[in-house]
C-alpha cells in the first residue's frame, strides 16, 4: 500500500510540474480564418486584393455586409464615403433638403452644424480611414519588401502602378478634407499605424501643396487614360482632380491657379473621352457599361457590393410609395418606378431653386431636369419633415437604360448604379470657368464650344445653344447646377462664387428660415469633429466653432 501511495503522490506532483511549465504557449491564440500582413503581401495577386481593400475604403461601409462599419461615431449604414460626402455637399445647399430628423441631418440645411454632427464625424473618419489604408498599402510597396517576397519584373511594375493608385486615393481624400475641414491632421506612409500617437495638424495651404505634389508625382506612374480596369484610377483621374483643386485654389490658398486648371482640364478633355448620348443613362444601373464619359466611378452592385450608402442611399432616399388624392397634399409615386420596389425611404428632395434653373421643372425641354412633375407636387416647403413638400429628384435610379430593375434578386433595395466621381462634363465646365476667370492657355471660343456640347445633349438639338455673350460666370454656376446637381459639387461651387453663406443668394430654409437667410462665414468650413479634437491634443478647432 505504502509504495502505491508514494507512487501516486509522485505522479500528482510530476503532473503538476508539467502543467506549470508547459502551458504558457496556450496563451497565444490566432483568430480563425485570418492571416497576417506577410501573407497578404506575399505576391502580386495579394497586393491586388490589398489594393481592393484600399478602394473598399470609399466603396463600402464595412467588410462584412451593409450593416457593418469600419468607423464609429456615425450610424453604420450612413458611414460610407458617398453618403457622408453627399449630405455635406448637397443638403447644405439649394439642391437638397431632407425630411429626416436623424442626428445631424437637419443641421445641414439649417446651417447650424456643430462639431458633434455624426455625419461630419463620419465624413472625417471615412476620409482619414481610407488615407490610413493608403498609407499602410504604400508602406508595403518598398523595394526591399518586394524583393523579400521575390516580386520582380512585370509583377513589381504592377505593384508600382497599384502604389500610384493608392497615392492618388490618398491625395483625393486629403483634397476632400481640405475642401470640407480645411486644416485636418496629417500623416503619411512614414508614420506608424497602431501605436498611440498624435498627428500634427496641417494648414489648408500646405495641404494644397501636398495634394498637388502628390498628384503630379503619382500621375506618371498611373495607367494611361482608359488603360486601367473599370473602377480603378488612371492618369486622367489625377489630371481631373488637379483641374478641380486648381479651380478652387483661390479658396484654399488665396492664390488663383486658373491657368493650371485650364491645362489639366484640357489634358483630360483631350484624352479621348466623349459625352454619353443620353444624360439620364449616366445615372442608371448599367452606367458601368460602355460609359465613354466617366473617368472614375465608385462601382456598386445590388448583390456583391452592398451598402446602405452610395447610390442605394441616393435612389431610396429620394422616393417613397405614395398615392395621389385630389385635395390632399402629396402625389402618386411608386418606388418600383425607380428600381427599388422593396425600398423607398422618403427623405431627400430639392427646394424650388433647382428646378427653377430649368426652363421647365421636368425633362420636356432640358432632359437633365429629372424631376417628378405630376399632380400634387408642390414646390413650397412649409415643413422640412414632410417629404411630399418640395420637388422630387429622380436623377439616380436602379433601373437600367432598358427600364428594368437591375438585380431583382437583391431584394428591391440595394442598387447597382455606379456613382461618378469624375466625368468629362465637369472638365468642360472647369475649362470654361477658368477661361472666364482669366486663366491663360485656353480660349473663349473653345469654352463656348464645350458648353454647347453639354447644351446639345441636354436639349437633343442646338436649340439650347448659347451665344458667347451668354457665357458668364453666373451662367457657369447655373449650368453647373443643371449639369452636376446631386453629384456632390454644390457646396464647393457656391463657396467659390461666394454665395454659400452670404445673403446674396438665398434658398428656402437656408439658415433655418423658410424664406432663407445668410449665416456667418465661418460655416464655409466645417468644424474638426469633437471626437478627434478630444483625442488629439495637437488639433486646434477651426475659427468660429
Amino acid at each position, binding site marked *: 500500500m505504502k509504495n502505491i501511495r508514494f507512487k501516486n*503522490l509522485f505522479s500528482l506532483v510530476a503532473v503538476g510540474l508539467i502543467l506549470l511549465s508547459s502551458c504558457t504557449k496556450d496563451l497565444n491564440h490566432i483568430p480563425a480564418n485570418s492571416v497576417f500582413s506577410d501573407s497578404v503581401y506575399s505576391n502580386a495577386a495579394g497586393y491586388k486584393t490589398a489594393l481592393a481593400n484600399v478602394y473598399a475604403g470609399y466603396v463600402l461601409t464595412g467588410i462584412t455586409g451593409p450593416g457593418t462599419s469600419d468607423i464609429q461615431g456615425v450610424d453604420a449604414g450612413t458611414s460610407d464615403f458617398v453618403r457622408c460626402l453627399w449630405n455635406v455637399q448637397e443638403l447644405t445647399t439649394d439642391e437638397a433638403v431632407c425630411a429626416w430628423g436623424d442626428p445631424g441631418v437637419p443641421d445641414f440645411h439649417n446651417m447650424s452644424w456643430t462639431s458633434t454632427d455624426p455625419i461630419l464625424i463620419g465624413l472625417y473618419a471615412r476620409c482619414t480611414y481610407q488615407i490610413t489604408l493608403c498609407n499602410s498599402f504604400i508602406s508595403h510597396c518598398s523595394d526591399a519588401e518586394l524583393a523579400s517576397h521575390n516580386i520582380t519584373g512585370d509583377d513589381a511594375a504592377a505593384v508600382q502602378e497599384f502604389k500610384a493608385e493608392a497615392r492618388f486615393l490618398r491625395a483625393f481624400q486629403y483634397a476632400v478634407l481640405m475642401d470640407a475641414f480645411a486644416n485636418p491632421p496629417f500623416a503619411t506612409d512614414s508614420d506608424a499605424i497602431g501605436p498611440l500617437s498624435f498627428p500634427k495638424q496641417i494648414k489648408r495651404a500646405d495641404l494644397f501643396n501636398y495634394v498637388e505634389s502628390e498628384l503630379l508625382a503619382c500621375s506618371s506612374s498611373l495607367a494611361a487614360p482608359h488603360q486601367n480596369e473599370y473602377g480603378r484610377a488612371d492618369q486622367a483621374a489625377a489630371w481631373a482632380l488637379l483641374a478641380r483643386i486648381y479651380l478652387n485654389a483661390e479658396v484654399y490658398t488665396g492664390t488663383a491657379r486658373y491657368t493650371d486648371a485650364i491645362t489639366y482640364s484640357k489634358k483630360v478633355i483631350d484624352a479621348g473621352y466623349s459625352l454619353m448620348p443620353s444624360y439620364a443613362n449616366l445615372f442608371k444601373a448599367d452606367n458601368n457599361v460602355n460609359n465613354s464619359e466617366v473617368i472614375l466611378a465608385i462601382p456598386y452592385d445590388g448583390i456583391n457590393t452592398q451598402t446602405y450608402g452610395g447610390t442605394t442611399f441616393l435612389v431610396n432616399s429620394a422616393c417613397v410609395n405614395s398615392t395621389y388624392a385630389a385635395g390632399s397634399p402629396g402625389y402618386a409615386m411608386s418606388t418600383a418606378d425607380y428600381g427599388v420596389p422593396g425600398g423607398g425611404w422618403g427623405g431627400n428632395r430639392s427646394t424650388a431653386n433647382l428646378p427653377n434653373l430649368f426652363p421647365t421643372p421636368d425633362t420636356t425641354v432640358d432632359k437633365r431636369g429629372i424631376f417628378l412633375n405630376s399632380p400634387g407636387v408642390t414646390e413650397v416647403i412649409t415643413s422640412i419633415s414632410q417629404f411630399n413638400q418640395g420637388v422630387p429628384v429622380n436623377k439616380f435610379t436602379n433601373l437600367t437604360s432598358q427600364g428594368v430593375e437591375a438585380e431583382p434578386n437583391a431584394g428591391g433595395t440595394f442598387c447597382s448604379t455606379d456613382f461618378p466621381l469624375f466625368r468629362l462634363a465637369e472638365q468642360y465646365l472647369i475649362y470654361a470657368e477658368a477661361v472666364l476667370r482669366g486663366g491663360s492657355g485656353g480660349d473663349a471660343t473653345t469654352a463656348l464650344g464645350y458648353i454647347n456640347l453639354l447644351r446639345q445633349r441636354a436639349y437633343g438639338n442646338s436649340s439650347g445653344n448659347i451665344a458667347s455673350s451668354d457665357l458668364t460666370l453666373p451662367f457657369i454656376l447655373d449650368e453647373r447646377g443643371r449639369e452636376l446637381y446631386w453629384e456632390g459639387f454644390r457646396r464647393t461651387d457656391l463657396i467659390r462664387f461666394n454665395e454659400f453663406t452670404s445673403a446674396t443668394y438665398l434658398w428656402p430654409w437656408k439658415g433655418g428660415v423658410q424664406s432663407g437667410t445668410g449665416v456667418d462665414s465661418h460655416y464655409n468650413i466645417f468644424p474638426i469633429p469633437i471626437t478627434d479634437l478630444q483625442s488629439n491634443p495637437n488639433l486646434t478647432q477651426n475659427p468660429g466653432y
Partner: protein
Amino acid sequence: MNLRRLFMSLLLLVAGSFSAFAQKTISGVVTDSATGRPLPAVSIIVQGTRTGTQTAADGTFKISVPANAVNLVISSVGYANKIVPISSENIFVSLTQINASLNDVVVIGYGTTTKKEVTGSIATVSTKDFQKGSITSPEQLIAGKVAGVSITSNGGQPGAGSVIRIRGGASLNASNDPLIVIDGVPLDGVDFQGINPNDIESFSILKDAAATAIYGSRASNGVIMITTKRGRSGKPMINFNTQFSVSKIQKEYPVLSASQFKNLVDSLGTQTQIDQLGDANTDWQKEIYQTALTTDNNLSIAGGFKNVPYRISGEYLNQQGVLLTDNLQREALSLVVSPYLFDKHLKIDINLHGSNTDSRTANTGAIGNAVSFDPTQSVYSDNKTFGGYFEWMTNDTTPQPLSNRNPVALLKQYDAENHALRSFGNIQFDYKFHFLPDLHANLNLGYDVAKYTGTTNVSVNAAQSYNSVPSLRGQDNQYYNNHTNKVLEFYLNYTKDIPSIKSNINAIAGYGYYDDHYFNRNYYSFSASHDTMPGSKPSYPTSFSDVTLLSYYGRLIYTFNGKYILMGSIRTDGSSRFGPDYRWGVFPSGAFTWRINQEDFLKNSNVVSDLKLRLSYGITGQQDGIPFYSYLNYYALSGNTSQVDFGNNYYNFFNPPPFAADLQWEQTATTDAGFDFGFAKNRITGSADYYYKKTSHLLASVFVPALTNFGNKLTRNVGNMTDKGVDFNINGTVIRNKNFSWDVGFNFAYNEFKITNLSVSQDSLAKAASNIAVGGIAGGTGNTIQVLSVGYNPYTFYVLQQVLGSNGKPIEGLYVDQDRNGTITQPNDLILYKSPYAPFTFGFTTAINYKKWSLNTVLRASVGNYVYNNVASNTAVVRNVLNPVGFLQNAPSSLLNTYFYNNQFFSSYYVENASFLKMDNLGIAYDAGYLSKHSYHLNLSLNCQNVFTVTKYSGSDPEIYGGIDNVIYPRPRVFTLGASITF
C-alpha cells in the same frame, strides 16, 4: 496540456479498495427541540472520524460505529451542534434551532470557512431562504435576497436569463458580469441555460476584494459561488417535487383604443388616411398573449451506497411563454457521488449535470408591433395573399415596405426551433497526505460543454419575409454552434493549529488553467422554397475562437487567539486577450478581521452575541467582455456582399481591424470596511459594509486620433471610474414560540459610480470634456440618448430640457435654451439628466410560521432609477399615427398628454422616474408532516409571483436594465401550486 496523462494518474489513484470496519450499530431519532418534529437530513458523525450518516425523512438514523467510539456529533444547518455520548444503542436527540449559526459553513474561493471566521464580505443564501414559486433559472432564487446584488430578468420569455450586478459593476466596455463558479468550476460568463435550479444547495456571494482577489483574473465584479446538492451517507431519501403554474401578463402597454384612434384620424387625418381606417376593434396585445401553463417535476434520490454518498436527480420542465407560440422544455439530469478512499485520505467529488432544452422562441418583434398596429384593422382579411392575415399593402400583392406587420402573423408564420444540449461538471480529488495530514493536495478537473442547433422557418406567404422574387420569399435557415470550457485547478492546502502560540495557519498555493473554445458553422441563407438567398454564401464554412487564462495563486490566513485574523493573497493571471509583453497581471489583497466579541469586555455580554470588524483592500483584474484578439494586427476576409469591383470582376479582400498591441489588464482596487453583528443570542444578526472601488486602466472603447489606426474607435486602457457605496442587511426573529414564529429580513444598498477619465489624450481639457454617445434608440437612424461623460454616472441620459405649459403638459419643441443663444441646438443645449441605475435598492423578506402553516413574501424596491420611454418617444406622436406614406399606426396613450405632432426624441419628458416597489413573491405553505409513521412527508404550497408593482412609470414595467424601454417581454404574474413528497 496533458490532461490525458493526468487522468491516467488519477485513475491509478482511484483503483484502490474500499475498506469496511463496522463494529457496533447505533440507532436513534433526532427531533426539533421546539416543535418536537422529527428532523430529516441531520448529519451524524462519530467524533474524531469521518464515519457518518444522516437521518431519514422521519428523523431516524442507524450507524455502525467502531467499538471504541465515544461520542456522536449531531449537526444540521440552522441548528446548534450537539455532542452526544454513545451510551446506549438507542439515542434520542433534540436539536435547538439557532437563527443564524456562526458555525454555518461559508464557501470561499478554494475552500470553506465558518461564518464566524469569514474575513471578507460574503453573503450566503441557502435552500431555506430561496425565492419560492415557479423558478426556472438559478439566479432568480436569490433575487432581492442580498444587499448590493441586483438581478434584473431580461423579461418574461422562457429561458431569457438575467443581468446580475454586484455593487453596480466596475467596468465600462469590459464585462460587468460577476464570475460564476459552480462546485469550484468557473463558468465562462453568466450562462444559466439548462441548469436546474432544484439542484442548487447554496449561493455564496463574494463582494469585496478580500473574498474575490483569490479569483483575481475575473473577480472585479464579484463572484457567485454555487454549490449543488449532494448526498449524505445513510439510507436513500427520495424526494418528488411537482409544480403547476399559470402565467398571465400583469399589464398591457397602454395604447389608444380603437375609438380613440378613430377619433384622432378622423379629426387630424387627410381623406386618404380616413379611408384607410378599418371597422374592427382589435386589442392587438390581447391577440398576441396567452395564459401560459408550466409544469415542473423533479425527482431526486440521495443517500449513501456502501458509505459512498450520492445524489441523483432528474427534472422535466415544460414552460409556455405568455407570448403565443413560445415554449420551452427541459430535461435535466444530475449525478453527484462523493466517495472516500485510502482510509479517508482521498476524498473524491464527482458532479455531473446534463440537460436537453428544446424551445420554440416566438418572434418578439410582435410585442412592439402589437403596441403600434392599427386597432381598427382585424386580424384576418379577405385578401389571402399573406395567409389570410391583414397587412398594409402598396397594391394587391405587395406589402408596404415601411409599415409595421400584423403581430399575429409575425408569431404564427414564424417558427424558430432551438435545441440546446449542455453538460457540465467536475471531478475533484482532495488528498490528505499520509505522512503530513495537515497538508492537502486538491485537484479539480471541470468541464462545461454545450451544443446549440436550431432552425428558423418563415412561411412563403409571410409579409415579414416578403421578396419581390417569389422563389426568395420566406425563410428556411439553420444554425449550429458549440462551446467547450475546460478547467483545471490544482492547489496545496496546509492548515496547522499551534496552540503553544495560540495560532492557526491556513495556507494555499495553486495553479489554474481555463480554456474556452467556441465553434460555429456558417450556413447559406435559404428562402422557404430552399432557394439560396443571393449574397449569403459564407466566406468560410466554419469559424472558431479561443480564449485561455493561466493563473498562479497563494493565500495565507493567520488567526491569533481566535480573535485576530490576518489574510493575505496574491494571484497572477495570464490572458490570451493580451500580447506577450502585457498579458500577466498581479492581483494582491489583504484583510484584517477582529472578532471583538471574543474580547473579555464582551465575552459575557447578554446583549452582544457577535461583533466582528472586517477591513480589506485588494486589487482585481478584468479582461472579459472585450474582443479576443484586439492586440493583434491580423487581416480578415471580406464577406461576399462586401466585394470590390475591378473591371467587372468582384474581389474579396483582406482587411485589418483596428488593434492595440499594448492592451493590458483593467484593474480595480477595492477597499471595504464592515461589521458583522449579532444581538440577543443572535436573534438579530446582520452586517454593514462601506466600499470604495477605483478602476484604472479602464478597458473602454474610445476614439483614437485619426490616421493612427485602422478605424477611429477601439478598445484601449483609458481613464478611471469610481464606485462607492454601502451594503446593509439585518435579519431577526420577532417572535418564536412553540406554535408561532415570525422572522424578518431587510437589506439595503446604496451605490454611486462615476467616470473620472475617458480620453486617450493626456491633455487635461480633453480628459474633462470627453463625451461618448451611447444608448442607441429606436426611431430615425443613429440616434442615441445616453452619454459616457466624465464626472457622471455611465449611461447618463443626455437630453433637451422640456418646457411645460401652464397646464403642466409639455409644449412641443420648446426647450430650455441652455446657452441662451436664441436657438435650440445640439449639443449646446443638451443636459446630462438622470441615470438608469438606481442609487438605492431595498429588499424585504418575511416568513410567518404557525403550526404547520407558513406564509412568506419577498418585496423589492429600487429608488432613483430612470427609464427613457422609447416606445412613447418613437410612436406617441401624431405623425406616427398619420404616416404620410400609406398606412396608419397606433400610439401609446401618452399621446393624449402631449399631442406632439413630430417626434421629440431628445425631450427630457421621456426620461421618466422608474423607481418601483415590487412584491416578487407571496406564498403560503402547509407542511402536512408525516402522514403516518415511516411513510412520507408532504409539503404543499401555493405561490404568486410578481404580485404587484408600485411605480409612477407610464410604460408596462419600470424594471428595464440599461434604462431604454422598447417594450419588454412582459414578466407575467405566475400562480404556482406545488407539492413535495419525501420518502
